[in-house]
């Protein structure tokens, strides 16, 4: 059947009640410093990948935290693991370990 693109839009709302936090909790176990993020955006500002793509490490971090994993796996592939974010983080979050751990967790069902 031809798809004319008519469909119900999914809500953009982050629904804390519906989201599953299992992966988020696993991430916290692997990278405890992840909990300390204060959302300052220093990581994103220094990010090499962000200079040339839509990649945003802070956004990935926050979406994972809210249990919104759907769009993440493609996004995380854009990170080159250069580790500049690690150098600027004021809360000393192990951002590189965080990205690697997120990638691994998103592969597991």
């Amino acid at each position: 059947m031809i798809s004319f693109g008519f469909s119900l839009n999914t809500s953009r709302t982050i629904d804390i009640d519906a989201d599953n936090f299992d992966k988020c909790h696993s991430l916290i176990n692997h990278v405890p410093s992840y909990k300390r993020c204060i959302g300052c955006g220093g990581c994103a500002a220094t990010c090499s990948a962000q200079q040339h793509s839509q990649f945003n490490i802070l956004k990935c971090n926050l979406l994972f935290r809210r249990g919104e994993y759907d769009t993440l796996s493609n996004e995380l592939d854009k990170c080159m693991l250069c580790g500049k974010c690690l150098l600027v983080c004021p809360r000393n979050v192990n951002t590189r370990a965080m990205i690697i751990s997120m990638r691994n967790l998103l592969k597991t069902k």
Partner: protein
Amino acid sequence: MNTFDSIIIGAGPAGLKAADTLANFNRKVLLIDTDAKIGGKLNLWDRLFPDFSSSQELLNQLSKNINNENVTLKLNTNIISIKNNDNHWMATDSNGNTFYATTMIIATGFDVFDAHRKEEYGYGIYKNVITSVDLEKILSGEVSIETPSKVAFIQCVGSRDEKVGNNFCSKNCCICAVKQTIELKEKFPLTDIYCFYMDLRMFGQSYEELYRRSQQDYGVNFVRGRVSEISPTMDNKVVLKAEDTLLSRPLKLTADLVVLMVGMEASKGTKILGNQLNINNTDGFVKSTDRYLSDSETTLKGLFVTGTSKRQMSIPETMNDAVNAAVIVNNFLNTL
């Protein structure tokens, strides 16, 4: 005619500390409060930020020296007017009694913001919406509740809000919320806590460290965004709507308990006395002559002001301010 060297109106932390200091200078002090007991708003809190020390222990320390021959304590006394007459100050209470002194110190402090005024948060409408003051009773064990599965804290209720006429930051609620989330986590380790904030202002010594610990050791979630409204669910919970401003997306959350972090307004007494003497700011707090050089003085000779009747202060700041006021008053008395 002047029975006392100084009348201190308000027996909260500021009034108690000022009375204690003046008594040590051998000054005769009359300490007046409208309540039936001393301590003022200190009585509303169980443990204090950022070190979880006991408020009642502090009150005991503060009141230890009040039963001293230099201090006369008058409780249940509501001062409704202050007048100056020929270099003495007169304070008249609601029963028509008048007290005389050479100087007067206003220590009438603050009132907690009345959360009913933010109707969209449903305080007084939904039983699971409480204030930070109500939560203290739960934390102290005075009131018991069932283990909540999700608790939301809402910052800046009655602060930084032109809609209620309070443009100011109450400055103590941010750290108070962090303290309370930790206490709540200690009481209910399995409860998920979400704290909604506009900015988190951790300006004081070891405040930032406590915030860090609340994240690292207690897993408290902080969401940047102001909750717009709260509505009930079929099963007697409440739903909060907010914008997750760091993600630019709407967010909703069902909670068993919502804690409104109510701010500090000039107290009714502060407003009445400030108005009467024309020494208040537009926000109702009493104006000192100069916040850098003469922060205890008012424009009226012999009338002084201390503590949260001037502006929002933490308890240690109030203590220092009260000592300062007492020293200034003692110097003033020496010049007469």
